[in-house]
């Protein structure tokens, strides 16, 4: 079981300098009232100007080579930046998908022209992406997508319906997974990813509201959308490999642990003020797990930086981490006995409401926990 080769990582000193810089930046932003800390901001906190300010400082697309607007920083540098942003509850949704998966995907699989076209804009915090994988009949079983890509002169025509497409109503670019060939014995063959700039006359985007009424994700209908050859990502039949690679890499980040951190911090403050800490060990045990989960997430980032593909370890982080986020909510509820209130001016009831209302997404997005445990079980040799 090569799971056991995962080792803890000690961050090099220069990254602690980076951490100080980003903390100072966040402190200044907060002091100037330019954002309000909230839970789960990588889903809900769309703020293009905040993303641009991060881009100006070189904190988006950090891993890109310099010719594409990056600084060739490694996975650990990105880890430090993202964990600081999440811990502060900063609004990072706009660039999140581009920074985390589409950018790295383009860098790995894209053509030179695609890299020059898209990566510098991502790094500046100006170009935002949405990802169209899921469909009405396709969820966990991603290979069952039905959106069709038909070969035409100089390109492809795409038709089909995508759902749950996060941020498609704001993003300038959409990447769509579609079938380039009828399903054969190998269900994973004959899939491709296509890049579509938005808005597009043949692409209709309609809101699907979250149970809170928030407009976050969308239904995206593609009606004979022409995609030129130059906008196919990598090889037309290579889509499965691309998507699973991206998914595996996106699973272990600190966002799988820290969506509810702002709530935990505020609850701590409130309990301390009321002199009610230390009377029980519940908070300590949550903090213990958070500390350990962060070490595990960091260890996976270290593996990534070393060029490894720790997909199973990443699945374990996401399974443990997302269940932990729900534990945080219950711990805060039990200790503070505050009623969640999305409209409250007080931070504690407001953040508790944000966390509770966003909690169903934690264990679904990016692969459900049941699927993740299946990935781990396969590694254990029992599937």
């Amino acid at each position, binding site marked *: 079981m090569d799971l056991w080769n995962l*080792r803890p990582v000690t961050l090099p000193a220069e990254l602690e300098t980076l*951490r100080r810089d980003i903390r100072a930046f966040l402190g200044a932003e907060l002091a100037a009232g330019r954002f309000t800390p909230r839970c789960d901001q990588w889903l809900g906190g769309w703020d293009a100007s905040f993303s641009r300010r991060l881009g100006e400082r070189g904190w988006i697309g950090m891993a890109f080579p310099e010719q594409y607007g990056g600084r060739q920083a490694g996975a650990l540098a990105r880890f430090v930046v993202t964990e600081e942003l999440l811990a502060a509850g900063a609004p990072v949704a706009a660039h999140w998908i581009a920074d985390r998966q589409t950018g790295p995907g383009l860098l790995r699989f894209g053509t030179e022209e695609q890299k020059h076209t898209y990566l510098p804009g991502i790094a500046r915090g100006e170009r935002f992406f949405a990802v169209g994988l899921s469909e009405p009949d396709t969820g966990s079983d991603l290979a069952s997508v039905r959106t069709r890509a038909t070969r035409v002169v100089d390109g492809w025509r795409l038709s089909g319906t995508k759902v749950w497409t996060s941020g498609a109503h704001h993003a300038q670019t959409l990447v769509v997974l579609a079938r380039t060939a009828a399903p054969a014995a190998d269900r994973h063959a004959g899939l491709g990813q296509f890049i579509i700039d938005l808005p597009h006359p043949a692409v209709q985007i309609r809101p699907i509201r979250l149970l809170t009424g928030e407009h976050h994700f969308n239904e995206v209908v593609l009606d004979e959308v022409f995609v030129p050859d130059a906008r196919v990502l990598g090889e037309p039949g290579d889509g499965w490999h691309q998507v699973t690679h991206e998914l595996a890499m996106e699973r272990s980040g600190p966002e799988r642990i820290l969506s509810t951190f702002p709530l935990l911090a505020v609850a701590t403050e409130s309990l301390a003020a009321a002199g009610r800490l*230390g009377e029980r060990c519940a908070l*300590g045990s949550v903090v213990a*797990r958070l500390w*350990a989960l962060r070490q*595990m997430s960091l260890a996976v980032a270290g593996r990534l930086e070393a060029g490894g593909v720790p997909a199973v370890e990443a699945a374990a982080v996401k399974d*443990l981490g997302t269940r932990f986020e729900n534990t945080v909510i219950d711990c805060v509820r039990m200790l503070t006995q505050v009623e969640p209130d999305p409209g409250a001016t007080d931070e504690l009831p407001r953040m508790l409401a944000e966390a509770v209302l966003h909690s169903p997404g934690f264990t679904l997005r990016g692969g459900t926990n049941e699927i993740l*445990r299946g990935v781990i079980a396969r590694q254990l040799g029992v599937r």
Partner: protein
Amino acid sequence: MNDIIEALDASVRSVCGKYGADDEALRRTDGWNPSLWSALESIGVTTLSVPEEYGGSGGDVVTAVAVLEVLGEYAAAVPFAETALLAGRLLAGCGVQVPPGPLAAIVAGPELQVQPTVGGVQMSGVARRVPWARAAEHLVVLAEDQVILLRRAEGLVAQGTNIAGEPRDDVAFDCTVPAERVYWLRGEPQRVLREQRLRTTLARAALIAGAARRALELTVAYAGEREQFGRPIKKFQAVQQHLAAMAGEVLLTKIAVEAAAVAVDTDSGAEVAVAAAKTVAGQAAGLVASLAHQIHGALGYTEEHPLRHSTTRLWAWRDEAGNEAACSAVLDQHVLAAGKGGLWPLISGAAYVPVPTKESR
């Protein structure tokens, strides 16, 4: 894994494979495994983390923890943590040569009095549940700013065990120890005590990491062998999900323990790290032991089955050197002191930088 640790891991594994598993031998020799101990001694493992100038074989806490993980896996009945990490380092901390043979470590509490007397110290009272006391050649007692080296026979050992059958003996003292075996600490006593406690707790957490891994491995293997309803039980999704949940906990514990070892070596955030690691290890111990038994069915609940070597130790060790409640309470105190702005630095291990205000910019 660095090369030294990798090589060490392999050699400790091979020695444990050869001398570790014979349960009968353990029963004959009073609850511990002297042949495994000699084998470990001959490969220079038993004084790891004790500096060479004091008779140890050098190395850091990270290295000792790597060995403890393997020993935990094999349920090895030897006082390694006590000899190397605890007693050995106490003696080295006084600038004293560590004597050969297994050692037990004692921190004098309210029940044990140490009084200066002509030519040495007078010791009276009792130390309770001392790990491996009956196996030790020497007992090393930390009493405020002094470290006292006793031969085992100078104490009266009343045998006790933990629920895994490992020696946890009460030792009664009524003796005078000559001054040449009473040493003064070089470091600040409070600090030495604190570090001793951290290493004690970390050692138990590291053993848990190993035992939990063994319990998982036994369970994965069994789920592939045992058939019901015409197929191996590992084919049932409910069983797969249990196994995956166990694996997640085991990996989390391993990383937490190894990261805490780094924190102890570098003395950065060690108290938080060790408390967190032991809390997580204790949580994992409970979950892993119960799911391992669930999947093994009645067979795993028998004396013949080796699973109990791992699970009884998980149950024992989670309550030794501070259980989840005690370690969480330590964290509670840190969290209380840190407050809202300090919580994240506490977790990320980086010094707290206060948010600059408009005036200070």
